[in-house]
């Protein structure tokens, strides 16, 4: 049996668990935490402190632990900064201490501890000011390495993390006596209850103390309660679940550690689940956290909270040492001694700060005494005590059980800026009246420190909550339980200590607090930020109140006058992976596939993400040397014969109703009321501020029926804005909207042979000749033996072109058919790159041109903005500043001699200075035009409409580019539009 393993408790003494710490193998028992198992094995030194690299051991038995931060597991599962007190032991667990160079025992950075004056409060601000250049390169990296917490492995985490949503009438946070009774009361009333407990066992202090509940031990009573709760359909018991945040309107965040206690999660199961809990009422039964008394060298391994010492002895059958000295300011000290004696341990003395402390049979109680120092290299070996008489005495021991009283666990009560209030009766802050809506607090969390009080207030809180919800409930009978008074006499720190720790995680001492005060940091918020007290990952759970008490002492004020600090979510650290959930890697966001996706993948297409869509970017063929050659082939082949491109991703919005045309008049800057049935019109949409934000076509399928297309990227925004216009701006119009984007597979068929190809598919009886179906015609037709389809004679490429749409399920087959039937025309599929090249060649604007700063006038479409009707943005498009004579105009650009047009480059006069003041415009899009065999670009040029033929300098100082370009029409290819109408 391990050296410090006791009998009894709630660990399974029959089942051993193998684990390792710093490479050494140990054995614990089922039911152990890493902390309790190390303790049982006699390991006291578990880490090094943040700043001074002082040896540190475990201090608490819960998630408030500031000291025993370790790195657990290896590889992708490696997890730094994990509190050993919350790690459930499993077979094969590996853990390492952190924050030291060299071995844990002989940390080279322990040298820091020799210069505490150098590293005192605010040392960052004082010491590393000069020379300034040294900060980034030298000081900061050095400090970060020295003060680093654990390390990450940089390997992918192999586990998955889930997110989920729970709903209940009552959320009970904490399953100690108050929580269990609250859940029981609500459960028996048939309410939907969630009982969340951070620990893997229910019971809270009931399983850590020796008090009885009725006839039963705390553990037995807890088990009976758990059995009854588990039998209720409406009650969900969630162990290993930390409620970490209280948000608006009864929403709580919780992390369930599903598989943290396993070496590897079961197949398919997540490591953790991030729950969002929607509750009508919540009761915080989170208990209280014990606070230490600060004294000289109180951070030595072996100095442990008295309540934790009892928990380790009673629940985990472990003790930090065989000889444990107790230091307290209340009867907690006596209780601790009693429990330890009952476990067969030696308690050399109870050192009680109260001069009137009660006596204890068989144990020496040193009344009015204080510990003034500890000794020991890597752990306590003795304490030096100043007796009431003023004499000192050294007492040999292996551990100190330290108790300065209990602070209600306020975290969740503060998450909506609730401010705690001071309770003079228990000398601690308790929740104020400004709790989150729907939240109440019971038991020790509310300052009710007896077991009886916890049971009673749990019931009362539940009854009140159920009453609010109109649920009739009967209060369960209360079992008999300990109901002692609070006996504490406030005592915060031992005077005269040179180095007495207040905040263990951030290495803040009583002296640091005093120094901050001397230097004028009087407000608690300033104190925190200057000393970093309470700013570590534990948010000062064990240190804030002590820090305040020291501050109060300095200012001569009372603690509540000095102030208080509040807590913010998360109550305990939450792993990034848990917040990410399954939104990682390829599942980062949903993927939208086009109807021709599977076919395109078969062709070896390269895909590009456009929003959530995957679009074919280009289709490499055998023999293509690089992507550019592929794209040029696709362009030339389309312009020479026929190409096909999947354009399903463009947004499609069905607009119907008596006022459909009038509605389009409102949302488009140009007019749609007079568009004939069977015709398509290009339209530009403005924002209300007069800036162009989307363009596309609207087809009039019937008198009261249009289909509006949007750009791929803006489909969601345009739909949202159209609904805004329909519901909020023009609520009396008869118009109905619905998106049909995904309902139709739509392909552009472009090129001189487009009609010939389509003719082979379109059912006889539909005339698609140029005369019957001219440019900008649209209609409903059938193809391939009766399949309903829509045909639009529109062109983005500048060629004779159609867009044909069929129900999406037939999209794959249609693409294959187009390829088959197009073989005689050497049909080519083309992707978004070729599409982009062709639209630049044709001078069509896209997002690069509709970039959020440009007006219709800038785009050369100023005349399209109708002045004879009201449309969104039309009024403000006329405002000053958008209509200057030398405004930017969209132009085409090509190099005069050599060089390339580059998107993002700026245009300057051929002669004259090159600076922002003389800027003439900028390039928005550029490509190599295989049709013109030259580089071409589109851009905005000051007064561009009147500068055709002018030579400018296109400069890109970032990459030393300086090219002479000629201003030309933006329509490089077929400016008269003859091909469109062929």
């Amino acid at each position, binding site marked *: 049996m391990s050296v410090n393993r006791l009998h009894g408790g709630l660990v399974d003494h029959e089942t051993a668990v193998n684990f390792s710490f710093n490479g050494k193998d140990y054995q614990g028992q089922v039911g152990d935490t890493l902390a309790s198992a190390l303790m049982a094995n006699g390991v006291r030194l578990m880490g090094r402190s943040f700043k001074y690299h002082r040896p540190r051991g475990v201090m608490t038995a819960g998630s408030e632990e500031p000291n025993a931060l370790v790195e657990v597991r290896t590889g992708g599962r490696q997890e730094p900064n994990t509190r050993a007190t919350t790690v459930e032991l499993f077979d094969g667990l590996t853990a390492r201490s952190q924050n030291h160079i060299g071995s844990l025992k002989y940390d080279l950075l322990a040298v820091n501890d020799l210069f505490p004056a150098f590293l005192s409060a605010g040392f960052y601000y004082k010491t590393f000011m000069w020379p300034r250049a040294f900060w980034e390169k030298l000081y900061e990296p050095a400090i970060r390495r020295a003060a680093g917490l654990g390390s990450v492995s940089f390997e992918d985490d192999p586990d998955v993390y889930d997110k989920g949503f729970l*709903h209940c009438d009552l959320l009970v946070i904490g399953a100690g006596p108050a929580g269990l009774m609250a859940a029981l009361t609500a459960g028996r009333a048939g309410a939907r209850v969630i009982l969340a407990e951070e620990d893997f066992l229910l019971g809270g202090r009931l399983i850590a103390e020796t008090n009885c509940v009725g006839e039963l031990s705390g553990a037995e009573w807890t088990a009976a309660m758990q059995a009854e709760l588990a039998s209720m359909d409406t009650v969900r018991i969630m162990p290993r679940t930390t409620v970490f945040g209280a948000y608006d309107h009864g929403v709580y965040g919780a992390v369930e550690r599903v598989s943290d206690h396993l070496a590897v999660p079961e197949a398919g199961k997540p490591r953790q689940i991030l729950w969002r809990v929607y509750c009508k009422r919540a009761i915080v039964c989170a208990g209280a956290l014990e606070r230490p008394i600060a004294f000289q060298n109180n951070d030595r391994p072996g100095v442990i909270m008295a309540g934790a010492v009892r928990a380790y002895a009673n629940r985990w059958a472990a003790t930090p040492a065989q000889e444990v000295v107790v230091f307290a300011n209340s009867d907690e000290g006596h209780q601790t001694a009693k429990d330890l004696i009952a476990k067969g341990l030696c308690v050399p003395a109870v050192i009680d700060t109260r001069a009137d402390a009660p006596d204890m049979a068989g144990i020496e109680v040193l009344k009015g005494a204080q510990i003034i120092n500890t000794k020991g290299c890597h752990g306590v070996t003795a304490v030096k005590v100043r007796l009431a008489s003023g004499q000192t005495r050294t007492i040999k021991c292996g551990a100190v059980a330290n108790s300065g009283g209990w602070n209600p666990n306020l975290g969740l009560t503060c998450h909506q800026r609730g401010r705690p209030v001071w309770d003079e009766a228990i000398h601690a802050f308790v929740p104020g009246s400004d709790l989150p809506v729907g939240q109440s607090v019971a038991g020790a969390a509310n300052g009710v420190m007896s077991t009886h009080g916890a049971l009673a207030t749990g019931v009362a809180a539940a009854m009140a909550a159920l009453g609010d919800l109109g649920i009739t409930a009967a209060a369960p009978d209360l079992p008999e339980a300990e109901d002692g008074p609070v006996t504490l006499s406030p005592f915060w720190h031992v005077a005269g200590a040179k180095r007495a720790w207040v905040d263990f995680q951030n290495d803040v001492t009583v002296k640091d607090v005093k120094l901050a005060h001397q230097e004028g940091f009087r407000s608690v918020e300033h104190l925190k930020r200057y000393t970093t007290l309470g700013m570590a990952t534990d948010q000062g759970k064990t240190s804030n109140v002590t820090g305040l008490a020291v501050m109060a002492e300095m200012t001569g004020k009372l603690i509540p006058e000095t102030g208080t600090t509040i807590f913010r979510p998360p109550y305990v650290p939450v792993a990034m992976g848990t917040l990410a959930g399954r939104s990682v890697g390829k599942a980062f966001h949903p993927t939208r596939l086009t109807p021709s996706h599977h076919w395109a993948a078969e062709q070896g297409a390269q895909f590009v993400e456009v929003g959530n869509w995957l679009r074919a970017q280009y289709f490499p063929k055998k023999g293509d040397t690089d992507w550019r050659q592929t794209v040029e082939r696709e362009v030339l082949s389309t312009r020479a014969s026929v190409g096909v491109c999947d354009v399903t991703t463009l947004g499609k919005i069905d607009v119907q109703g008596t006022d459909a045309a009038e509605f389009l008049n409102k949302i488009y800057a140009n007019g749609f009321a007079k568009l004939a049935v069977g015709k398509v019109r290009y339209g530009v949409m403005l924002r209300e501020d007069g800036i162009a934000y989307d363009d596309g076509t609207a087809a009039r399928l019937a008198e009261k029926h249009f289909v509006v297309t949007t750009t791929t990227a803006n489909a969601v925004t345009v739909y949202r804005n159209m609904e805004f216009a329909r519901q909020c701006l023009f609520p009396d119009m008869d118009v109905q909207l619905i998106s049909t984007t995904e309902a139709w597979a739509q392909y552009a068929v472009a090129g001189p042979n487009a009609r010939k190809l389509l003719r082979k598919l379109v059912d006889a009886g539909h005339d698609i000749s140029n005369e019957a179906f001219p440019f900008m015609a649209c209609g409903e037709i059938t193809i391939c033996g009766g399949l309903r389809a829509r045909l639009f004679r529109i062109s983005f490429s500048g060629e004779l072109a159609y867009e044909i749409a069929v129900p999406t399920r037939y999209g794959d087959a249609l693409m294959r058919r187009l390829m088959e039937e197009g073989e005689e025309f050497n049909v080519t599929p083309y992707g978004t790159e070729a599409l982009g090249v062709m639209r630049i060649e044709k001078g069509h604007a896209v997002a690069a041109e509709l970039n959020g700063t440009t007006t219709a006038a800038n785009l050369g479409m100023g005349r399209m903005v109708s002045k004879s009707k009201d449309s969104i943005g039309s009024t403000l498009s006329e405002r000053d500043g958008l209509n200057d004579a030398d405004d930017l105009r969209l132009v085409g650009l090509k190099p005069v001699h050599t060089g390339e047009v580059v998107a993002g480059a700026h245009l300057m006069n051929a002669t004259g200075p090159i600076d922002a003041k003389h800027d003439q415009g900028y390039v928005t899009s550029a490509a190599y035009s295989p049709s013109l065999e030259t580089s071409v670009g589109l851009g905005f040029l000051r007064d561009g409409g009147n500068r055709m033929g002018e030579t400018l300098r296109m400069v890109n100082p970032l990459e030393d580019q300086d090219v002479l370009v000629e201003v030309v029409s933006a329509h490089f290819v077929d400016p008269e539009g003859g091909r469109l109408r062929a």
Partner: protein
Amino acid sequence: MPDLKPLTALGAAAPRVDIIGALTIAETPNVALASLAARKGQGDAVVEVVKAGLALDLPAAGRSVANTSHRIWWTGPEQWMVEADFTVCELLAEALKSIVGATGSVTEQTDGWCRFDVTGDTVVALFERLCAVDVAMMAVGDATRTSMHHIGCFLIRTDEGVIVIGPRASAGSLHHALVEIAGAIA
């Protein structure tokens, strides 16, 4: 009959069925869908004509109705989705147009969506990890739209389980989410 071969939303010739633990997740491609929106001031009239034409009362917010040939669920104020068997009524939109006439606007929605029928004892546990809707408290016939793994979907509670109707282009992502979570709760 067109001589083009349709694909299911997941991109295969035949619908996919996954049985994971207690759950069955079945892709259901044979549905025809059409949206219906009342014209201005025709809210009552459209209810009448649909009742006469399909023998169903257009459902109130959050609800669906069904008979042997059609299912209708509420999608928004004075807006509904109508569903029929694709193999029987591929041209549902046309049929519905002739029923509602000028009282409503009808739009074919058949291939805008994919449908998965999720059945089995653990459906509540599944949806608990997919969406914020309190599926446990949904009554049979309740229908709502919500977001699951960033995908906007309709959920309809039936006797057997839950029908999920999601955007067709995201069928793969939706299916992936359903199957992965089913594995996690199996």
